[in-house]
């Protein structure tokens, strides 16, 4: 009985220490988690782009005219990364107004990116390059698939951006408490880099 009481006492101290434990845990593990997650996404796109190369080796691809709006997408996503980074620096300097503005700008640029992607798909479709179906070719299917899957990952990024924006609006971030924002920014930069890779890959391999 005494042992049990002792245990319960110890358990309570454990709980008190738990709050600190959770914060420390988050600080220690959030960034590694997102990095390794990124590695698995790289392998996913790596698998798909090597599938393109293997397929191309099978019979050769016909050139597809790349929509100009994909070039605009590239400019937009680079700008959005710059804006997000500026937001992080602003928070670190304590300039909350600049942070709020630049993160809002990042979100708008992210949405614009999707719009330009959509414009690209419309252009492809109107020029007779279909995603699937009787008249589609492997190269056009791959083109839609790779860009589409990138947008799917980007939508995930937009949700995290929205979360960061809400927290910034409430002035929740500070120099000491900024892990969440850093995680989101790592992912966002990765999405930019992934797009540039896909853009160049599609430009030189398919188109």
């Amino acid at each position, binding site marked *: 009985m005494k042992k049990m009481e002792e245990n319960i006492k*110890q358990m309570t101290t454990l709980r008190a220490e738990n709050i600190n434990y959770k914060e420390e845990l988050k600080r220690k593990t959030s960034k590694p988690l997102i990095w390794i997650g990124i590695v698995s996404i790289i392998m996913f796109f790596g698998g798909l782009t090597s599938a393109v190369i*293997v*397929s191309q080796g*099978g019979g050769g691809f016909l050139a597809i005219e790349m929509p100009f709006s994909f070039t605009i997408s590239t400019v937009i996503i680079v700008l959005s990364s710059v804006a997000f980074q500026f937001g992080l620096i602003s928070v670190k300097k304590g300039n909350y107004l600049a942070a709020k503005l630049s993160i809002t700008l990042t979100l708008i640029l992210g949405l614009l990116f999707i719009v330009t992607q959509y414009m690209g798909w419309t252009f492809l479709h109107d020029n007779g390059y279909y995603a699937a*179906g009787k008249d589609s070719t492997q190269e056009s299917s791959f083109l839609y698939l790779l860009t589409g899957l990138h947008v799917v990952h980007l939508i995930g990024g937009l949700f995290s951006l929205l979360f960061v924006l809400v927290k910034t609006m409430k002035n929740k971030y500070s120099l000491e408490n900024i892990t969440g924002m850093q995680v989101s920014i790592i992912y966002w930069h990765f999405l930019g880099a992934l797009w540039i890779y896909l853009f160049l890959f599609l430009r030189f391999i398919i188109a």
Partner: protein
Amino acid sequence: MSTHQHHTKDFLFTYVFSTDHKMISKQFLITGFLMGFIGLIMSTLFRLQLGWPGESFEIVELLMGSWQENGVMNPDKYLALVTMHGTIMVFFLLTAGLSGTFSNLLIPLQIGARDMASGFLNMLSYWFFFVSSVIMLISLFVEGGSASAGWTIYPPLSALPQAIPGSGAGMTLWLIAMSIFIVSSLIGSLNYIVTVFNLRTKGMSMTRLPLTIWAFLLTAVLGVLSFPVLLSAALLLVFDRSFGTSFYLSDIYIGGQVLDHSGGSPILFEHLFWFLGHPEVYIVLLPALGITSEIISTMSRKPIFGYRAMIGSMMAIAFLSFIVWGHHMFLTGMNPFLGSVFTFTTLLIAIPSAVKVFNYLTTLWKGNIVFTPATLFSVGLVSTFISGGVTGLVLGNSALDINVHDTYFVIGHFHIVMGLSAIFGMFAGVYHWFPKLFGRMMNNKLGNVHFWFTIVCSYGVFFPMHFLGFAGVPRRYYTFSEFPMFEEMISINEFISIFAIIAMLAQLVFFFNFVYSALRGPKAPMNPWRANSLEWTTPVEHFHGNWYGEIPTVYRWPYDYSKVDSNGDYLYGEDFIPQTTPLGENEKDGGEH
């Protein structure tokens, strides 16, 4: 909130939506074993057909209904059973069941952490696995039956819903279930890696980690790198099946009708599939190797021989597993030069594997071996790892592989080296860590019975398959009674089937022992095997957080067994020195050199 509600909530978060790694480990274990049991029953059913083709087993009809009309297995269902047996055993039992159970149980306990990096992701990983298991089982009951294209689901059989009955809804559900499974596996692996790298207790350097942790870490790395590629393969397959793309299909006719697909190649699928598929072999095997390293050292009361060599060879195996996938595809019209490259990389794996076997044997050599069921199964793994590995040299060599490709030789090889080794490792792990999982001891006598029946019957099942393979008997055939050249082989198949049935019955002994001991077994002491690693410093009862008060500090590697001083007496008076004992004067840490 009323007390009743409070209790329900407690129950729900303790046993169902738990974020405690120990509970999640038990959830993985039990779900994995249930799936494994279903896979086992499936194999017994198709062994009945192979051993006694066309003979009626009316009693089975009670269980199988129209799958077994008049007691004879329906040929379509034979293919479905073979496919589901492979899928369930490889992914559900030996990937999620093995890695999920022991990575979850041992990573936090052995590195000295309160829990995983993210308890929530860990819970999510289990529930994705659970949902995926349920969908996979539901696929047995849809029209046309479950997927039937083999566990490797090669297109076009898997890509055209009209190809065979199992290519319809069953295949769709297979793909859905596997996609969810991959997500589960990825989330789990993420967690394992981050936990090992970031949450080790004070003093727990990488060279003081038990080999189990090294094995789980490398397994998780393999998972993160290879499962996304399978996901991409599955995704392209879904597009081909449902949206009319042609990634894997070209110029196909069905029933005289030309299909619209053109330009694709099924070989592309094989490349993507085996880029996962080969590392998958080691995802299955490495945890078993880690578990047995730990058990063999503890039970022979000797430090593991070549600790660093063990880590190095596991790393080498993990690395090589990514550049050997072509050896599954020697017959796809591959350029012979490329074939020889894959042969070279494949045969290289023999080197680290041999290092591991050598180290196992030298660890056992002259040890004070304690014969528990866990020890027996670990030694059983060493045996199957050798006898299955040797036939790998035949299959890895493109010139030899061509002769036995897709025959029973392959079935014999991979069941011994991957299936048996991994399941022996899993059994060893369950017997060894049962006290940690359930706070009770398993019955050793029943364990020994289980081991001897299992190993004798396993060899009885898989060894003769090599002879079938040499005779050219192809895998996945429903019956061989129509081929005069295979008539002599029917008696071998009967022999195999008898052993398969006995092996299946022997597993019932294990299940009884497992359930009975979990409920009524004798209470376990804190450190029943007198082992060094950290998990045995935690209290027997489970609670979230693992250690009361501070997490212990680690001062030495986990393999200080039978360490003696200059007079030949045991240091500290015992034949084991827990990792929490500070190093004495002039004492060296075993992991450092």
